[in-house]
């Protein structure tokens, strides 16, 4: 099993370690709930060094990306980031990812750890352009500093004005006298930064941030999932996968159907023109219990779909889930039944973006 450069820090902090995507990662340090609330109310710092990093470089780097990626790569300016998908020929999702534009001939792709090898092979296979595709995963360490206090905390370590880094942009500058690439992005529904750098530098920053900021907690993969779930952010293999298209999942904003052709685009255009047949929705359980992934969903005794993720939401304190159901049952307020082990429980359809932070 692989270890990230922060492994020793996790052990020192008495994290409970679990296997995730071939890495030994911290599930939690104290408790999932406590870390979850720390990120929502103050700040938390995550080791996300397991994420995959892929460089695309060359005179036709933009053309290659435009061909495989659903969003409007050609509209990007340097230092901008876009969220979007690699789609297969059927319009299903190979992976969701962030694209960082360094310049017209250099892009950084940040992909899911579990999909990295598949993505790398996929992109290389589709590369009929003057571009080079390089797996740089082992050259990057990465931490995510997330929460309403993230900017205030990080600002004390750098001369660079962090308020100038807008949402979904990045810059390279010094923090605590070392060089980092810093983006205003995250996977929690809160403000915050994702910080990339050399292994030793990221390790130094992680331990200094924790040692010098009493209100900052180390946060593990456990709360990373509850936070993203509440904020309506998808996890590959749950709300999106090879069989659920980005349109069905409700992320059409990251799919440009009008641009010059990308893989799977024709299928997605037809899907949109014909009208979606099914959709990912949120469910709120009305009976006592908790929803998890993989439960069958019924409407008037007919099985109509299944749940994709589910938790007792730490912020809303309600049992919530995402589920894929036919369009005709996807209307907010629709009452459905979910089979939880042997029991049939009532749930109500609602927007899957369960939590939205108040803009300051």
């Amino acid at each position: 099993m692989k270890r990230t450069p922060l492994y020793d820090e996790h052990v020192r902090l008495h994290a409970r370690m679990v296997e995730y995507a071939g890495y030994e990662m911290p599930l939690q340090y104290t408790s999932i709930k406590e870390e979850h609330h720390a990120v929502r109310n103050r700040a938390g710092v995550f080791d996300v060094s397991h994420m995959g990093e892929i460089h695309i470089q060359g005179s036709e780097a933009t053309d290659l990306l435009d061909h495989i990626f659903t969003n409007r790569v050609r509209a990007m300016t340097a230092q901008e980031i876009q969220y979007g998908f690699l789609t297969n020929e059927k319009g299903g999702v190979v992976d969701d990812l962030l694209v960082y534009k360094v310049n017209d001939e250099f892009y950084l792709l940040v992909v899911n750890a579990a999909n990295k090898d598949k993505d790398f092979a996929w992109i290389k296979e589709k590369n009929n352009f003057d571009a080079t595709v390089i797996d740089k995963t082992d050259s990057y360490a990465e931490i995510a500093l997330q929460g309403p206090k993230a900017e205030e905390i990080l600002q004390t370590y750098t001369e660079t004005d962090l308020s100038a880094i807008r949402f979904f942009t990045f810059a390279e500058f010094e923090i605590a006298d070392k060089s980092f690439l810093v983006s205003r992005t995250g996977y929690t529904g809160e403000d915050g930064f994702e910080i990339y750098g050399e292994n030793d530098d990221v390790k130094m920053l992680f331990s200094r941030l924790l040692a010098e900021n009493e209100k900052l907690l180390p946060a593990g993969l456990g709360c990373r999932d509850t936070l993203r779930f509440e904020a309506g952010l998808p996890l590959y293999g749950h709300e999106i996968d090879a069989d659920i298209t980005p349109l069905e999942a409700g992320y059409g904003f990251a799919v440009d159907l009008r641009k010059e052709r990308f893989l799977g685009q024709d299928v997605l255009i037809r899907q949109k023109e014909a009208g979606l047949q099914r959709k990912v929705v949120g469910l709120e359980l009305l009976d006592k219990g908790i929803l998890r992934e993989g439960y069958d969903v019924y409407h008037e005794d007919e099985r109509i779909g299944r749940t994709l993720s589910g938790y007792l939401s730490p912020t809303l304190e309600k049992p919530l889930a995402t589920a894929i159901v036919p369009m005709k049952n996807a209307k907010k307020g629709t009452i459905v039944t979910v089979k939880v082990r042997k029991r049939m429980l009532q749930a109500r359809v609602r927007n899957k973006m369960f939590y939205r932070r108040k803009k300051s």
Partner: protein
Amino acid sequence: MKTPKDLRYTKTHEWVRVEDGHAYIGITDYAQDQLGEIVFIELPEESDDLEKGEEFAAIESVKAASDVMAPVSGVVTAVNEALEDSPELLNEDPYENWIVKVELEDESELEGLMSAEEYENMSKE
């Protein structure tokens, strides 16, 4: 990790305490620690039949749902209803807070269960 000497244990981390032909069943300290914060428990009902090795309750932590397996067979004569409103009691004191009490169907089933020492050795591995 606490493992009281007077209880019997299963590989699936339940404990059994026998009193006058009845068995109290709960989950071990190791189990509650591995599960993390317990937020909900789905309990059986009085007079339900438990069958050794089959699940009879479900414990939900923040992270996931886990089945609780019956260490012995028998009819449920009492359910610890305090757990319905306060499932965290299982984290606080897993040995004081039993889940169900059953009337033993076959006392010889107890012989297949582990001693505290055997259970501790297994959990260490």
